[in-house]
């Protein structure tokens, strides 16, 4: 029906557009990657494009020998694990009861949750709250306040809604209580959704630094990696502060900057392609309105 020639030209144009876009996404990453592996003289002469020049690992060695950076990296790994588990726990606890239509106050609780998505008190009121709770400059401020994302809760809930009621009802006939139904039916069936939401939480904790910037600017020993990178990035102009952060390998700073970027990025880039099928499903679930 569709004339072959016409559609072939169309196909070629579309493929060309996407090839350009792919290059647009990959080249900056390759550029940084090759900078991190290039010799400082090649960097100074501005020769580094997509491939490394004067291949060496000095920058990575400099980074891994720096205790501050290493410590922050380990701490962020631990932090991300704790946050993801805690957030998953809260999300499931919050989403699961909504499956039961008998639950009283279901609507009002739902409205209260949704409201927080559109109206927030703002930075200063939050800051005052953290201050009065004694959480300022405390590592817990990175874990508890942002633990539950209502958006992710709605994703989880939509997935639970999608599971058939008859499964639950037959389990209830056999005398299983809500908790039993959750652990032996709902959770095992929700592995894809759990994986997606875990990824979302993990990514937002690994990448987030706004809360750390506002709430724990004075607790240098608890800086997550992104805040450390942020400070380095803001201060590369002034060597003084770079020294303070512990970064002053002479002749290397450009490569070191690139290396820090690479190290802070690799973990996530290694994981997300394998979860693609799931998170695409997850985002799609979020479109289901209640």
């Amino acid at each position, binding site marked *: 029906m*569709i004339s072959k020639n016409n559609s072939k030209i169309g*196909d070629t144009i*579309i493929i060309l557009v*996407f090839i350009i*876009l*792919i290059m647009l*996404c990959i*080249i*900056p*990453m390759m*550029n*940084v990657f090759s*900078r991190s592996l290039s010799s400082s003289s090649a960097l100074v002469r*501005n020769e580094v494009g997509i491939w490394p020049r004067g291949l060496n690992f000095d920058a990575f060695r400099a980074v891994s020998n720096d205790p501050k950076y290493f410590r922050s990296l380990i701490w962020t790994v631990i932090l991300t694990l704790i946050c993801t588990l805690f957030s998953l726990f809260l999300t499931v*606890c*919050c989403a*699961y*009861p909504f499956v039961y239509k*008998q*639950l*009283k106050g279901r609507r009002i*609780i739902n409205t209260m*949750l949704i409201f*927080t998505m*559109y109206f*927030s*008190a*703002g*930075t*200063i*009121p939050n800051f*005052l*709250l953290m201050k009065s709770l004694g959480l300022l400059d405390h590592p817990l401020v990175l874990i*508890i*306040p942002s*633990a539950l994302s209502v958006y992710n*809760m709605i994703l989880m809930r939509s997935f639970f809604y999608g599971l058939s009621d008859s499964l639950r009802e037959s389990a209830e006939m056999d005398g299983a*209580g*809500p*908790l039993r139904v959750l652990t032996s039916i709902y959770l095992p069936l929700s592995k894809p959704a759990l994986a997606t939401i875990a990824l979302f939480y993990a990514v937002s904790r690994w990448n*987030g*630094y706004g809360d750390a*910037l*506002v709430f724990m600017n004075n607790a240098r020993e608890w800086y997550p990696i*992104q805040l450390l*990178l*942020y400070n380095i*990035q803001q201060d590369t102009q002034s060597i003084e502060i770079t020294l303070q952060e512990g970064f002053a390998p002479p002749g290397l700073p450009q490569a070191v*900057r690139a290396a820090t*970027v690479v190290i*802070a990025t690799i973990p*996530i*880039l290694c994981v*997300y*392609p394998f979860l693609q099928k799931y998170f*695409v499903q997850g*985002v*799609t679930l*979020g*479109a289901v309105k209640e």
Partner: protein
Amino acid sequence: MEAYQSNNPSNGARKRDNSGKFYKNMLHLKRYGTLYLLLIIPFAQILLFRYTPMINILAGFKKNQFLWPLFERPWADNYGFEFFIKAFQDQYFLEALRNTFMLNILDLVLGFPIPIILALLLNELRYMKFKRFTQTVLYMPHFLSWVIIASLATQVFASRGIVNNFLGTSIPFLQSPINWVFTYIFVGIWASMGWNTIIYLASITAINPELYEAAAVDGAKRFRMMWHVTLPGIRPVIVILLILSLGRILGTDFERIMAMRNPLVFEYSDTISVYVYNMGIRGMQQSLAAAVGLFQSVVSVVFLLMANTIAKRFGERGIL
């Protein structure tokens, strides 16, 4: 007497009814009590970290004695609105307000259509392996933090960076304020274009295939089908996302702007979020910052509601 007699049986019935209700409630609690227990922790978390800060909004209406406990501070002048008035007399705030509008409107005008176009084009890709690979690559920037993206941008767009080398120029992409604005918008689009196609692609798959068949019978070619079938098919989703982004017109992604700004472009880069941070957290103007933050939240909600009403008037499903 008559009234008493007629009341009596109904009283008894109510009593019985009440005890029945009590019994039913107990049964309900026995059967579903665990559900309430499950809800308590997340609900308490939301109450504590989303609702109690709303009390602290008071800071915007009180004098700026931030070493005192909030409730002991004296009220601000002008019936508590001293700092709202002060904000609108502050050149820095007016600049921040202008910048917020400017950056968000540019983001909306230049950035909003791109994921739609990309989704339409992705939908036309017939080589499934290439399609999947393209998607994987285009989703990647969503998984990078703003610090990383900004760091990439400063290296790639440096005056001796790879872009200028490629063009054989030395354009100050990040140093001159006007250029910075467009670099900021471009980088934002780069970071979000792939991820934002997901929702459109999902709604494209929900379009009834019969519509395409009917269009083909009518002799429609590919482009016409895209224009007359696919695009109208995803219109409700486009409208919802448009409403949501209008609701964010006064908000800024704090992490994005903090990572992307640099001292040479402060006159265009400092938005309301940055203003609040600089005045209230870094500076000593807590009341002023709280007032501005409240202004921002309220205006955002108003914009959201307005967009929602307008969409509904045009016969679209809104978000509320």
